[in-house]
């Protein structure tokens, strides 16, 4: 007999996730409403609400949002988009390759939504200039953003959540996930080349006209504030450098400042907040304006999700699920397989953020319950599945929704099935190859 509290927690959880998928009610409102019911009923006691919320994730997201908002005010992204377009020299296939690579690299260090939001209008413009079907370019941008986001700790919200909960460092992501992301990006680009390469041929005279039109764009005109532009780049470099050093910053500082404790470390969230403080202080940007632009709905969405998952933990649902997984897998390799593929397929349906929120405690529980399974590789399997699963369907990740939404507004229809045909293939190929690399690593 299932206890009534457990049943209520599961029903509220599923109902909330259904609302998140459907989004008739804002996802933040749905998550908060679900969390509020759990608190009201007492499944998540008020005293423990804050314990359930992963503030490492929330503050890391907040810090990065501030940095990105200030940087985008300088015109940095538009500048990058024009430079990328010019570098393609009027060749459509080079446009696809370069935009995919730039989107992947940018998504690895900044948030995917901002990256695609600022890159897509430029990509559509170039497709119009080239008089080519923009759909392959848009799809490649989505896939590249999701693959690139997988590469680093700060690239995608699932990675931020995983790192914060499992205590993984930026450099661990660089050593483990970045090589996988590079290989997977190459796979995605080859896939697009095979599928759409023929459609992207233009003759030399057309290429000349395209190049002339794009060369007429002035990237300097995109820079709204030259000083802020330079400060933004310097701050971003400092922040990325600090992320590289966050786990051994004490050792490095101890060389020059002997009084610094060599064991001192910085949490990724601290790095993001330090970066936010630097750019706000240095740029003299109006804090009211910047704080207004923080995506509070996203932060409250995360908060609500953490409480919802807390309800499942408190009622024992997560430990029961962990036990089921443990009973059905006997090795770490099998567990990696299950986690990666389940995360990938479920992420394609649910959106990878709520899915990751639910799977993180499950892996923790598996580590506590089973001695045969090493949970360390499972975190990477989860990152792989959650980030790449987003490519599976049109609603799998936020970047997909943003690009498809812009497409809708500009009269470019990419149907669910159109997306699925490309997305599922990309998802299966990249997850399979990524999992293979993880097997080689562990």
């Amino acid at each position, binding site marked *: 007999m299932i206890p009534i509290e457990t049943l209520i927690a599961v029903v509220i959880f599923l109902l909330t996730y259904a609302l998140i998928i*459907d*989004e*008739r009610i*804002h*996802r*933040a409102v749905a998550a908060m409403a679900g969390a509020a019911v759990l608190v009201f009923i007492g499944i998540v006691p008020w005293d423990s609400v804050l314990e359930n919320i992963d503030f490492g994730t929330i503050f890391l997201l907040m810090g990065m949002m501030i940095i990105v908002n200030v940087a985008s005010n300088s*015109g940095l992204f*538009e500048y990058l988009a*024009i430079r990328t377009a010019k570098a393609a020299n009027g060749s459509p296939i080079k446009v696809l390759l370069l935009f995919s690579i730039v989107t992947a690299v940018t998504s690895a260090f900044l948030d995917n*939504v901002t990256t695609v*939001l*600022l890159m897509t*209008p*430029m990509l559509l*413009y170039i497709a*119009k*200039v080239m*008089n080519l079907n923009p759909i392959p370019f848009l799809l490649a941008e989505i896939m590249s953003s999701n693959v690139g986001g997988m590469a680093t700790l700060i690239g995608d919200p699932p990675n931020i959540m995983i790192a914060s909960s499992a205590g993984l460092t930026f450099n661990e992501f660089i050593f483990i996930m970045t090589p996988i992301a590079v290989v997977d990006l190459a796979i995605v680009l080859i896939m697009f080349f095979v599928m759409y390469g023929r459609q992207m041929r233009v003759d030399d005279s*057309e290429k000349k*006209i395209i190049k*002339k*039109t794009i*060369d*007429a*764009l*002035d990237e300097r*005109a*995109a820079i*709204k504030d030259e000083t802020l532009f330079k400060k933004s780049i310097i701050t971003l470099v400092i922040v990325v450098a600090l992320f590289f050093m966050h786990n051994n910053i004490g050792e490095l500082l101890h060389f020059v400042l002997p009084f610094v404790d060599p064991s001192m470390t910085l949490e990724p969230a601290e790095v993001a907040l330090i970066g936010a403080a630097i750019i706000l202080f240095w740029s003299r940007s109006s804090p009211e304006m910047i704080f207004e632009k923080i*995506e509070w*709905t*996203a932060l409250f969405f995360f908060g609500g999700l953490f409480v919802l998952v807390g309800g499942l933990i408190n009622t024992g649902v997560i430990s029961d699920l962990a036990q089921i997984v443990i009973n059905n897998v006997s090795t770490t390799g099998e567990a990696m397989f299950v986690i990666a593929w389940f995360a990938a397929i479920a992420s394609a349906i649910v959106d990878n953020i709520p899915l990751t929120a639910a799977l993180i405690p499950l892996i923790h529980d598996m580590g506590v319950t089973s001695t045969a399974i090493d949970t360390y590789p499972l975190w990477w399997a989860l990152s792989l599945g959650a980030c790449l699963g987003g490519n599976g369907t*049109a*609603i799998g990740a*936020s970047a997909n*929704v*943003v690009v*498809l*939404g*812009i497409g*809708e*507004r500009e009269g470019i*229809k990419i*149907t*669910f099935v159109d997306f699925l045909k490309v997305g599922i293939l990309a998802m299966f190929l990249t997850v399979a190859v990524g999992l293979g690399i993880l097997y080689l690593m562990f």
Partner: protein
Amino acid sequence: MGYYSSLINRKFKDVVGNRYEGVLKEYREFLLTEEEVVKDVKSILLPLDIFVKEIPEELYELFGIYGAEVTLVYISDRDAIAMVGEILGEDAAREYAEKKEKYGHSLMDKISEELEQRGISAKKRLFSGHKLDNIEILAKDYDLVAISLNYGGGRGDDNEISPVAQRLVHQVNKAVVLY
């Protein structure tokens, strides 16, 4: 709108809010407009008269992008010449027409020099006629027509665009750049 489209739009709105409008506005400031990206422009008609004082640098740049041949056409207003003749006599009308021609040649020489300096080939035509009708007819042979807001005159403080330019924009059945 089907369920899928409305779902994407709902999710887009929730994820992006109103940031997209801001992004679009910023891009519009430095991306070429729809008219400006018209491709396969091989010939451009540039009507000139006494009211067109100079060509903005951006227009030269646009001509340069297309690499098309630009035809400068200066039309002296035949009605104005006739009116001078009726009031002041034929000699005065001839003198008036010659002055107009001289100015037209000097203006076209100046602009064609500017164009050639930028590697854009230019042709010149000068005649007396009716600006609105003649440009409308001539435009048929060109891919793009660049019309000054002042063309044909009569642009006062209240008028953003001269009546002749306004009518040409509506009547010319070709891509038009208004500067």
